[in-house]
């Protein structure tokens, strides 16, 4: 991969099915490359130390806190952000359940929450409460957890 071109650091990222060439240092956190260099702002900054999960994206299908991943580690992998979760105009079943159950309050953490839940459901299509407790560790200061849990069960019972 071309790292430099006359002092310009380049990276190729595959985001939401598109290959995007950006000018960014390889040690830049993927979160900031996505937000600032690619321009997709649905992925949120909350803590920068992989505690809160607001920046969760899928890397090769695995829910990952993008603030803790360097761009160089993400190159060559399939990255999906909240903007790429829907299939065209058809929302992902988690997004649909979020609307049906009126989950978000301020909504800031919900991109990450939805990405974490979508990854969980791929692995465990019918998660138990214990599965949810173990897999979903995102912080939500508004406290939407009750609706998050209800919406997850609503997806799996649909």
């Amino acid at each position, binding site marked *: 991969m071309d790292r430099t071109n006359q002092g310009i650091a380049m990276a190729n990222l595959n985001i939401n099915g598109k290959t995007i060439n950006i000018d960014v240092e390889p040690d830049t956190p993927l979160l900031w490359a996505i937000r600032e260099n690619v321009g997709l702002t649905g992925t949120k*900054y909350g803590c920068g130390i992989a505690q809160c999960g607001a920046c969760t994206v899928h890397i090769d299908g695995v829910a990952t806190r993008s603030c803790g991943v360097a761009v160089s580690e993400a190159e060559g992998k399939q990255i999906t952000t909240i903007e790429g979760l829907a299939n065209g105009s058809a929302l992902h079943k988690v997004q649909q359940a979020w609307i049906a159950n009126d989950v978000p309050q301020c909504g800031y953490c919900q991109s990450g929450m939805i990405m974490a839940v979508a990854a969980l459901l791929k692995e465990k299509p019918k998660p138990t409460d214990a599965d949810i407790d173990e897999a979903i560790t995102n*912080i939500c200061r508004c406290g939407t957890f009750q609706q998050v849990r209800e919406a997850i069960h609503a997806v799996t019972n649909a």
Partner: protein
Amino acid sequence: MNKHVSPRMNRRAFVIGTAAIGTGLALGLDLPFGGPAIVRAADGSPEVNAWVVIRPDDTVVIRIARSEMGQGTLTGLAQLVAEELECDWSKVTTEFPSPGQNVARKRAWGDFSTGGSRGIRTSQDYVRKGGATAREMLIQAAANEWKVPASECTVADSVITHKASGKTTTYGKVAEAAAKLTPPADVKLKDPKDWKLAGKGLKRLDTPDKVTGTTVYGIDVKLPGMLNAAIKDCPVTGGKLKSYDEARIAGMKGVKKVVKVEDTAVAVVADTWWHAKSALDKLPIVWDEGENAKVSSASIAKWLSEGLEGGPAYVGNSNGDVNAALAGAAKKVEAVYSYPYQNHATMEPLNATALYTPDKCEVWCGTQNGEAAFAAVLEASGLPADKCDVHKLMLGGGFGRRGQTDYVRQAVLIAKEMPGTPIKLLWSREEDMTHGRYHPVTQCKMTGGFDADNNLIALHMRISGQSIQFTLRPAGLVNGMDPSTFQGLAPKGDAAFGYSIPNLLIDHSMRNPHIIPGFWRGVNVNHNAIYVECFMDELALAVNQDPLEFRRKLMKNHPKNLAVLEAVADKIGWSKPPPQGVHRGLAHYMGFGSYVAAAAEISVTDGSKIKVHRIVAATDPGYAVNPAQIERQVAGSFVYGLSGLFYGGCTVKDGAIEQTNFDTYNSMRINEMPKVESIVMPSGGFWGGVGEPTICVAGPAVLNAYFAATGKRIRSVPLRDQNITFA
């Protein structure tokens, strides 16, 4: 006045009307109007009045003056307007007027501030009138066209019908004509009993964009040519910026400028925020931390504890003669409680984007107080009101923090150094954690006295500690006293004490450390409710009485308080024993005009691992505009309240706040979330808030249950300091 008014809702705005009307009559405000000119929204659609714009396709645009930070006010206010407007709910959309427009139009939208759980309760009257006035004008316009009396026309779902002639039309078709009419001087509002949209648990209007990542929060603003700024303010409040070595970062990638911000902070401006932050982290900075660097949590605690032992104090509530009654009491009970600093830690760190030129200053940000943010822009830019504006965006959490404007001021000051270039200032989480407007720190000495028949005859509650208003809003002080200190303890009003005790004294020894306090969701009820409601359990125990029965005797004159308390007791099954290994606690309180209560069921392992199995929470807000959203606010308030109880607490070392991120200032996760069974029981006749009140009963209900489980009384927060955590 008939002065030109620009109703521009965004930068693409254009104006068709000229001598625009201020339709403030809809507000009951004394605003001039006249016309036939029409005020138009950005897309050219006519304003029927300040609250209602109708597009030709029948879309109803409802203006929302209050901020939306997750609490659902946007949807609730729209429901109230739409209820009176009789419009088709499926065609409702909303927009935020800007504070600059509000000023230009003599506050046509009233107060923008969104705090104190006031969003709906203090504007419900005039927004409903706005909807009703618009409805009357739309009907009149149809009647004029048909040359029939308006009284013969009916309306439902935006369709106006004249039954006798069989004529129908829609709001979209008559809006132009309606906008030219003189608003009716008086309109009759519906009895809430007749509500069809309000009072229903309708879905939020702002959800779809929040599940696709398309909602634009302040942090997401993009403007052409925009640069990004990261900032570090002196870690010790009161300290100053001494020097920094700019040369050390001058060559770093993307760095454009290093800016001193007043005499306390330094910001790096770069092409991206990541570059700005990375450079700032490498910038050598020398602080002059000053005298406050000697302050620690221990020194604050010592100073506060001195205030518990007599001495001068502001009296917030008193009756009878407490000193005499306690001196003659057959039995006395005494306990000292404390509550720490807490940070709001909104999920979206503070930010604002400013564009300054010598002729204009605009700011884009999430704010709980658009008008205060506007005032901050005026002050920092030095420009007059007609050359400034604030564009309000969705808030990634507020909880009281975004009612302050420190971050707005900083953004403008930085932008002023680079005229013509939009600057987005974003605080790192570390900056947010260490430069909060913290929940005030207090201690409290509770002293109760019983007569020989075990009747509670005296209660002295001495609070010692910080006043929020002393620092943030000195105008709110009354002869030096901060009335808000006595939230839930006042003799009357929307935060009244819920007990009648023959000899009562509640007083406050005000002591204000240098840490800047703030309005933290629930404000002063958080600690006051723990002090009162845990101590009530201590008093009940002292005379071997059931906590519910003990309270009931003191609440004969407080039927609404008692009603919510009995509702949670009934639902949790207080009269029957709990399941094996499970223990219960109760609490009730009044705050923000609403009556609330909670009952908790918990189990405790090894004395230190708490599992909260069940929370039952009751709220009587008078009127419930959207019960589904109230349930969500209540459930969420337990997450915020219990996070503060278990994990919160900001400590001071060398004058600075020690906690820097969520690793040291933790927040509850889903596995710790109890099921909250919410009882919404509006009794009518008053308007209470819902965003905050229930937060304060979370703590005492769980602490009382913890005592029931262990026999150990916890009197200080957070529980992590006592090695107690969630199971």
